[in-house]
């Protein structure tokens, strides 16, 4: 038996789209097999079929040599296939331990104390800095991602599927995850790994399969290919510059904040933006970098000595609505809980933040809203079957593009972009970087907050590094290197 898992001729259609068209995929024992493709290529759909969430329209799946067809994720899990889905499905009001136990622990008699002990041990073994008895609601996005990973690792599975596990965690935590993956490999466990970060694929994967528009493009050994080749397999064309940078910083200051304090986390942060500049904020999980944006945007209570947008001094921002009126916009960190109303369609989500443009006396002109939605869908190449498609059914990356579209439609004076490229594909990332450059050159202040160090390093003119809510310094020019950022982010000074 060469393959532990084999998917043959898988086809799956949704109303209006062929998500998978006669796709083949196979997995060897003890290998890490990366699955690549643009947003909406069908990666998540494929793994959902393997793990029993969806049924394929056509095709067969062989698992350990036998044809299988799981009726539910639980069935797949019992058979030894664990999945970390792209959308986190945790119970917000339960504790970390309880979340990990649900579906994993059969015994109803397990005491709470014992459960917490077991989970704490697991988390410690994994090197995850999370407490077993904290409530999931109080965790941030990346901590929730770590909980999902821990949940999948709780059982001894033969196959572990990871759909963009690194999208919401920092480099530091990704390193920990890769160590875990290497250990699993040694134990003969096979892993399907989805990511939009090619460097990760080269670091961790043995083989790679590329999908494009629901079609199988090819499978190769990672050792026999290059980033360039993978990109052209994915996109169907070459991308010459991954990190375009052509913004022109000027002297004029267009935004500044002094002594910002947000909630109980962020203390004494000051920085300013110059016209045409791309200003980065970096830091590990829990460093308070996204809270800076939420505080200034009026979502979390915050205080400052002075805040200036252009020449205007603003003493307090009480709500996002007020922030928007002052010309401050924010691309929120988590598209599903903060960015979108999942039950509404793409057009309504874009309209929601741009109602002013289409309403008169409270009445909405839907014809106009429809035109605007089409324009934005075109501008960001959002893959939809119609403007009336519910955002819930868009692929993860296309949801992210919808968030960018709705926030940037009304041109702000300053925009805080929190993890704006999270989960979007290579081609779209380049598009976002271009958008960032253009925004800066058009005189809009860009604060680029990201956990992806390569993009921070390549894109930003200056970078503020945070550590446990405190500013550790602002790096400039040649000082901006991954090493220096990591040093500051872990609390070590840079000479």
């Amino acid at each position, binding site marked *: 038996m060469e393959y532990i898992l084999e998917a043959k001729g898988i086809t799956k259609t949704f109303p209006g789209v062929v998500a998978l068209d006669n796709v083949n995929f196979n997995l060897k024992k003890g290998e890490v097999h990366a699955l690549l493709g643009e947003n909406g290529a069908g990666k998540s759909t494929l793994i959902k079929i393997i793990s029993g969430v969806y049924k394929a329209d056509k095709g067969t799946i062989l698992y350990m040599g036998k044809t299988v067809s799981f009726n539910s994720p639980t069935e797949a899990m019992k058979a030894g296939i664990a999945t970390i889905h792209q959308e986190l499905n945790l119970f917000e009001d339960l504790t970390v331990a309880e979340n990990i136990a649900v579906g994993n622990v059969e015994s109803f008699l397990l005491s709470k104390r014992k459960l917490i002990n077991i989970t704490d041990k697991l988390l410690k073994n994994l090197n995850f800095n999370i407490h077993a008895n904290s409530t999931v609601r109080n965790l941030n996005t990346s901590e929730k991602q770590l909980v999902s990973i821990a949940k999948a690792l709780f059982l001894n599975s033969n196959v572990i599927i990871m759909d963009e596990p690194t999208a919401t965690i920092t480099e530091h935590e990704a390193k920990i995850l890769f160590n875990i993956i290497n250990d699993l490999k040694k134990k003969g466990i096979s892993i399907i790994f989805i990511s939009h970060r090619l460097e990760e694929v080269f670091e961790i994967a043995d083989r790679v399969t590329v999908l494009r528009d629901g079609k199988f493009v090819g499978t190769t050994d990672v050792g026999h290919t290059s980033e360039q080749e993978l990109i052209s397999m994915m996109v169907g064309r070459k991308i010459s510059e991954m990190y375009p940078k052509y913004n022109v910083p000027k002297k004029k200051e267009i935004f500044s904040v002094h002594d910002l304090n947000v909630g109980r986390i962020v203390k004494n942060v000051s920085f300013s933006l110059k016209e045409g500049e791309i200003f980065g904020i970096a830091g590990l999980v829990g460093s308070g970098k996204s809270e800076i944006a939420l505080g200034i945007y009026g979502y979390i209570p915050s205080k400052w000595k002075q805040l200036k947008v252009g020449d205007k001094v603003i003493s307090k921002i009480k709500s996002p609505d007020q922030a928007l009126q002052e010309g401050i916009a924010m691309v929120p960190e988590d598209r599903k809980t903060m960015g979108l109303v999942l039950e509404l369609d793409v057009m309504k989500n874009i309209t929601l933040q741009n109602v002013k443009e289409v309403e008169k006396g409270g009445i*909405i002109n839907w014809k106009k809203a429809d035109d605007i939605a089409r324009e934005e869908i075109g501008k960001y190449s959002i893959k939809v079957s119609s403007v009336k498609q519910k955002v819930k059914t868009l692929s993860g990356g296309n949801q992210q593009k919808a968030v960018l579209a709705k926030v940037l439609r009304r041109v702000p004076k300053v925009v805080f972009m929190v993890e704006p490229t999270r989960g979007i594909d290579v081609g779209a990332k380049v598009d976002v970087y271009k958008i960032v450059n253009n925004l800066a050159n058009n005189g809009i202040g860009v604060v680029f907050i990201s956990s992806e160090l390569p993009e921070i390093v390549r894109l930003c003119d200056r970078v503020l590094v945070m550590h446990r809510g405190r500013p550790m310094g602002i790096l400039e020019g040649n000082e901006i290197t991954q090493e220096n950022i990591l040093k500051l982010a872990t609390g070590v000074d840079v000479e």
Partner: protein
Amino acid sequence: MNWRTILRKMREYPAIVGFVGIVIFFALLSDRFFTLSNFLIILRQVSIQAIIAFGMTIVIISGGIDLSVGSTLALSAVILADFLKSGSIFTAVFMALLVGAAMGAANGLIIAKGKIQPFIVTLATMAIGRSLTLVYTQGMPITGFPQSFRFIGRGDVAGIPVPIIIMLSLFALMWFVLNNTKLGLYSYAIGGNEIAAKLSGVKVDRYKIIIYMISGVFSAVSGIILTARLNSAQPTFGYGYELDAIAAVVLGGASLTGGKGHILGTLFGALIMGTLNNGLNILNVSPFYQQAVKGIIILIAVLLEREN
């Protein structure tokens, strides 16, 4: 339209399918049921419930619930009656609507600013409202109003009873509000994802207050019609109406977690409830069984919708 799209539409509006099914059922069992005059009776009986359910629809879409509708109806009815005794119809109706709006505003304000669950807030205002009504009337009904006022409940225009006309106008109004206005879009957004709505710049607190005010005013309208029909305002008006209204909205396809629902569904949800009452009475089914039948219908409807 091929049969597939028809099937899909049917699943989208299960209340219409259910209504048609129930009508056919009763029509087969009794020849007194399927007549124009009986339909007008059903519609007129339904109008009071339906109007409350229209207000409840926008509340539930926005992720809330309003248990105080019955008490609001009663309180505005007795205030209306009191003013009818001493002043003009216009003032009395205005005061009744004002009471409805004030009850709604109080609900919305406490829910939005106090960040307390709507269920609990409106449970409390339901009790308070009822108590105020009893104190105000000393538990006695107020009766005897001018003929011109009773027209609202008993009159007709071109053969169509006035309550039905009012109900259909409010239906059209709410249809327009939910589908074509900022308020409608915001209601779906707040119910679907309040955080995202807020981060998109929606003044969530303000819109919640407006939404509960609509529910309050619609309850008051029902109170006015009921008073005019019975030529009497009673402090016990509206007991249990909140449950019928919620049932109509849920039958209509809304979800109590918010973000989903539509007014056409609610209209047919209310019609189902009304038709059941009427049909079961015509068939002489003991009232002891009638509640159970309604309950079973609600469960079936919700089970069917779960599929979507």
